[in-house]
């Protein structure tokens, strides 16, 4: 999920695209509402439209919408900081008479007033992928348990490193303490058996097994830069946690350039097809796979059911949200840990 999170540097790009997009979307919303009155309108609002995760999510939602006879309207913001576009998308959907809105909140707190207004207007709102804060602000949440995803690769890494003294490098998303970044990083450390001190903060750990931490922006270039800096700082690193698979791919480039690919194990999270192929080739040791298509399809089904008879989905117990599942993908299984091989991963990957 994290490589869809954009840094604020793109704000300049965003403002231009945002204006054009909003004009376009507004006109679409008004134009189309006359047609298809028989079908209930459901909106899908993603963080960006330039990321395979959301592309797959949209495709999954569209497929389900066709199946169920739902008029699906998709909107996208331009990254993590772009709460504004998402607020406008919600307003436009409410104005268009939507029955349900599925949203992957860019800012889990700032989006709440817009969601409140939509729900007061009788629209059911479901959070996909990222929970809102508080989670009770929406009718339901379908998401990956990111902390669990982190714990799974943490446990795998612990089993894999048995007998060696671990020297861990952490490649995170950003310095901004973003929620998904925290959940994955802290989950990994917990799974590995490291005291995370404040579980809501990255980087406050005092464990000598952690030898370095850098931020990557969750993309290849950032992953490479960060890994190079960490290797420069400490050449004995033998385990690398990465926020997502693009960052892992970049880190692998740096490790390969240093000739250390045999000595360093990389773990990651996402389940994108390029990432799973990297598991198959051995560049990534293990990854936790999430299921965006399932999130979107379940969300659309719930919205369609709500439009039909007013039903609302109930959260799976103990999570506060409906867990759409996460699978550990590796070709070197660790005993006592359930995992799938990369060929299974290739059949179920996204992007």
């Amino acid at each position: 999920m994290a490589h869809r999170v954009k840094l604020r540097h793109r704000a300049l790009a965003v403002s231009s695209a945002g204006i054009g997009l909003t004009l376009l979307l507004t006109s679409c919303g008004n134009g189309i509402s006359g047609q298809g009155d028989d079908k209930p309108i459901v909106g899908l609002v993603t963080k960006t439209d330039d990321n395979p995760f959301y592309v797959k999510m949209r495709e999954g939602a569209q497929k389900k919408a066709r199946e169920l006879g739902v008029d699906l309207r998709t909107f996208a913001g331009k990254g993590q900081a772009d709460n504004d576009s998402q607020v406008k998308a919600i307003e436009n959907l409410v104005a268009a008479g939507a029955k349900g809105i599925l949203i992957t909140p860019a800012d889990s707190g700032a989006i709440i007033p817009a969601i409140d207004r939509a729900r007061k207007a009788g629209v059911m709102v479901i959070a996909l992928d990222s929970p809102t804060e508080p989670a009770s602000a929406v009718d339901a949440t379908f998401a990956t348990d990111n902390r669990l995803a982190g714990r799974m690769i943490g446990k795998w890494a612990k089993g894999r490193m048995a007998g060696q003294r671990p020297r861990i490098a952490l490649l995170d998303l950003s310095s901004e303490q973003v929620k998904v970044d925290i959940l994955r990083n802290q989950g990994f450390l917990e799974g590995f058996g490291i005291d995370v001190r404040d579980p809501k903060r990255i980087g406050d750990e005092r464990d000598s097994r952690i030898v370095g931490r850098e931020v990557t922006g969750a993309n290849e270039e950032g992953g490479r830069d960060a890994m190079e800096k960490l290797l420069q700082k400490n050449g004995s690193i033998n385990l690398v946690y990465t926020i997502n698979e693009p960052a892992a791919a970049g880190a692998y480039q740096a490790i390969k350039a240093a000739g250390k690919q045999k000595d360093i194990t990389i773990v990651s999270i996402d389940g994108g097809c390029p990432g799973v192929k990297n598991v198959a080739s051995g560049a990534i040791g293990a990854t936790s796979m999430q299921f965006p298509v399932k999130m979107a399809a379940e969300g659309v089904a719930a919205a369609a059911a709500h439009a039909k008879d007013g039903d609302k989905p109930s959260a799976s117990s103990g999570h506060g949200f409906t867990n759409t599942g996460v699978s550990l993908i590796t070709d070197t299984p660790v005993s006592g840990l359930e995992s799938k091989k990369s060929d299974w991963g290739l059949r179920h990957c996204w992007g």
Partner: protein
Amino acid sequence: MAHDTVPQHATDPPTTRPEQRGPLARGQAALHTKPLLGPLVVLLLASLFFSVWVGSRFSDPLNISLIVQQVQIIGMVGIAQTLIVLTAGIDLSVGAITVLASVVMGKAAVDQGLPVPLALLLGVVIGGVCGGLNGVLVTRFRIPPFIATLGTLSVFSALTLFYSRSETIRAQDVPPLLSWPGRSIDVLGTDVTYSSLLMIGCFAAVAYLLRGTAWGAHLHAVGDNREGARLSGIRTGRVLLSVYVVAGLICGLAAWFLIGRIGSVSPQAGENLNLQSITAVVIGGTSLFGGRGHVLGTLLGSLIVGVFSSGLALSGVDALWQVFTVGVLVIVAVAADQWIRKVAA
């Protein structure tokens, strides 16, 4: 050397001779006539500071070559940006052009089975075409560069996503020629990548174009005073258009370097290149108001950012301080530019 970068008719000589002033004024005059002096001093001081603070891990030849590798994409895109800024413009689409060109190279070679050299050429040409489009918007339609490239930024980004279907081509599938710039040779025990060498070559070539050719003199003249340049017989529209095309071609080459550096072909890559390139240009001492500056300053500017980023990372400082420092550097650089300009006033 720096005198050559300023066309004779573009700058008035200082009214007072330097030796009649105090040391501060002499320094100011020196910085005015030698635009590379400021960034060079900053780079040396920063390197010295981190060598002392961080120790041998910073001044290690391997780390130096690493810093060069890390700034090479910004450096390349920075060359393109410098050309535009010298004409008193700004190009917000350089990053988008670079990513589009890299996706074209990757898709054409990997998915469409085009011979790799042809795919490579196609990517560079697409870069030139995109630059040309910017040039036409600026010269023919008289759209201010900021607005024109703000528009094409979105257009090129959207095309990239349509064309790539937002999918990344992973490193293992990329043909060797496309990732060739990332390979390295051993020079005195350090890894030097081909792209680092090529980047330095590009800087030298563009520095020569700017200094040693009529095109370079015309470019400076247009940037310093477009109306004056037109009255002195320069075909300003044609010069401007050619600058945008050259900038686009350089972005196309940068795309190749980008693939070499990150291994894969990602439509998400290089999203911060626009602002980073402007940062390198500004810290490198090129005036955002056009006409004054040096392309080699941009090389120094990107190295300054690289040195700070590496030095702060190696000393274990939080990544936010790197962002903070770069911001301060930009402000100091522009303030210095304003101060230096006063010498001519």
